[in-house]
């Protein structure tokens, strides 16, 4: 019953002419582009990323460190700070707020002011974040309770006491022992696993439609990782929550995700349902990533078959396909000259590779 409590809705301008977005799509990101313009050069951290998250679906984003996963989701949340800037693309989000729990209108988050009222009313309310560094994401001089209550009262018109009740309920729900007492504590008085639960509780406070988890399990030990993953899966099933789950661990993706988006140097290489991606990878990069997973059943204990070559520096991205310098099967004269675009290969998988189709960016 508790989940029925809806957060206060902001008045938002409607952009409903995007007929491409179907009823079941919650978030559609199209050609998102985010730059960091610095004296040393311009880093194209996100270079035309497109993907879709359906209602109640878990989408995993994978890729090596520095490929732009965090920048992508920070762009969606519109919390990119200078010298970064979202310079192009659309972030279509289907809001809550329709009558009788029906969906509200679709809004393009890319057109909003990142610091403005409308965006802030969505952020932390309908779209929430479990940050990459849960250890440092809480203020050390404010109590857990203080920070949870703040998060509730930003979006719900309730008293401090009511907000505290909501926070305690959520903490209990995410498996926090003695939540009342924990409200009085500071983050550094909790273990890593419990801190992570505080972050999850905080992300769920206002009953969001979309939860973004940025590598929520990398900073904690393996046992706690497993608990956090199963907790997220339960929450997702029980509350019909959509989750974007970021990781560079394909094993984790296999456990939690419905769909996978494979990123490399700020671009999407391949996307599709998790089974297809794992059993029928189309892009050489996806294949290389899969090959680098240590096999549990493997008899030899040799070194991991890491992908050959280093990730290029973001200031001097290769021309053509960003992966071609490391790609064993690249086509000379094509892959190093033209940039492939993401196109649907079949009704499930999309891929950005000249080995699969010939679609290229015009320039």
């Amino acid at each position, binding site marked *: 019953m508790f989940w029925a409590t809806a957060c206060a809705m902001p008045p938002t301008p409607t952009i409903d002419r995007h007929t491409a977005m179907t009823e079941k799509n919650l978030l559609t990101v199209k050609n998102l582009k985010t730059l960091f313009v610095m004296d040393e050069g311009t880093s194209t951290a996100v270079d035309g990323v497109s993907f879709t998250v359906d209602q109640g679906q878990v989408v995993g984003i994978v890729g090596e460190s520095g490929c732009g996963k965090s920048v992508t989701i920070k762009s969606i949340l519109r919390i990119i700070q200078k010298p970064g800037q979202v310079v192009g693309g659309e972030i279509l989000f289907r809001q809550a707020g329709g009558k009788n729990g029906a969906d509200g209108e679709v809004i393009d988050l890319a057109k909003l002011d990142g*610091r403005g009222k409308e965006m*802030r*009313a969505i952020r932390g*309310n309908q779209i929430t974040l479990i940050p990459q560094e849960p250890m*440092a994401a809480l203020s*050390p*001089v404010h109590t857990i309770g203080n920070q949870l209550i703040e998060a509730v009262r930003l979006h719900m018109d309730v008293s401090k006491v009511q907000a505290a009740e909501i926070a305690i309920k959520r903490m209990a729900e995410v498996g926090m022992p003695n939540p009342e007492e924990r409200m009085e504590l*500071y983050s550094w008085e909790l273990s890593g696993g419990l801190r992570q639960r505080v972050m999850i509780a905080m992300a769920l406070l206002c009953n969001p439609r979309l939860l973004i988890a940025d590598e929520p399990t990398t900073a904690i030990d393996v046992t706690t990782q497993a608990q956090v993953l199963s907790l997220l899966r339960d929450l997702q099933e029980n509350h019909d929550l959509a989750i974007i789950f970021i990781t560079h661990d394909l094993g984790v993706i296999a456990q939690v995700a419905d769909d996978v988006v494979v990123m490399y140097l700020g671009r999407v290489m391949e996307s599709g349902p998790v089974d297809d991606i794992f059993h029928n990878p189309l892009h050489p990069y996806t294949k290389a990533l899969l090959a680098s997973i240590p096999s549990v059943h493997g008899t030899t204990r040799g070194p991991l078959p890491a992908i050959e070559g280093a990730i290029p520096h973001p200031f001097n991205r290769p021309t053509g396909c960003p992966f071609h310098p490391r790609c064993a099967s690249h086509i000379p004269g094509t892959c190093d000259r033209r940039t492939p675009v993401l196109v649907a290969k079949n009704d499930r998988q999309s891929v950005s590779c000249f080995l699969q189709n010939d679609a290229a960016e015009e320039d």
Partner: protein
Amino acid sequence: MLYYIVKRLLILPFLLFVFSVIAFLLIQAPPGDFVTSYVAELAASGSSMDQIQIEALRQLYGLDQPVYVQYFKWITRLLQGDLGISLDFQKPIADLIGQRLLLTVILGLATFFFTFAIALPIGIISATRQYSFFDYFFTVFNYIGVATPTFMTALILMWLAFTELGITITGLFSPEYADQPWSFGRVVDLGKHIWLPMVILGLDGTARLARILRANLLDELNKPYMEMARAKGLSEWRLVLKYPVRLAINPLVSSLGWYLPLIFSGSLIVATVLNLPTIGPLLLRSLIGQDMFLAGAIVLSYFGLAVIGTLISDILLAWLDPRIRMEEASK
């Protein structure tokens, strides 16, 4: 928290003991004893003292006894509120410094609040608008503030006020209130005069604190909790004031430990230049005139103010930062 404060209070007597020894050694430093100097001073001014009175004084100060007995006699009288007699002024020291000590504390606190009131917004704006016009402007302002000796600022402002406005800005009171007992009119008069010494004394500290705050804040602004606070939907100003500023202020508060004593004692030259009725100019005069009991009493009151300043900063810090409270409690 209570435990923490009690612990701080318990070391106070020890600190004061150490400082009183230092002050006493200072009194003992010049050659010859106090009574001989006193008699010589009297002789120079034409009056004299008979042998019995001189003996009584020697007895009082224990001059024929070992140094530790002399210290003991001095500290006992001190604790009873008897600071001794000033050689130079021929007056009880307590009467001489009482009023001046009060004005020193008032001026010190006024300077302190002025400093923070100005340094906080400058530091916050410079950090949140890094490399903006404001930031560059205040950077230059801060360098000037730190680099110009305070007495120089005082001289320049005095000169400007005199040549441009035709007024002399010295002292803390108008002549008609200078030697009057406290009254409402005198407080108002103090308010009219205190701002200039306050600004002059505070400029240097303002520049320093603003720079420290800017640097601390720039560190804090990149911390992951900022991103989390933004992701909650908090507005930029509210989140800056609630989280990073709160954290960046802690090092400032711990700097109070040295800053407060510095305001109290650092005013010596400025107070002399501006002819302020604080204890600074009196210390200078007593040292020049080898009026050692007066000098000792003033140095001891500086120590006292320093100890109180540190105590206030410690308590404030523990109140602001739960990590410090916890650390102390776990010891």
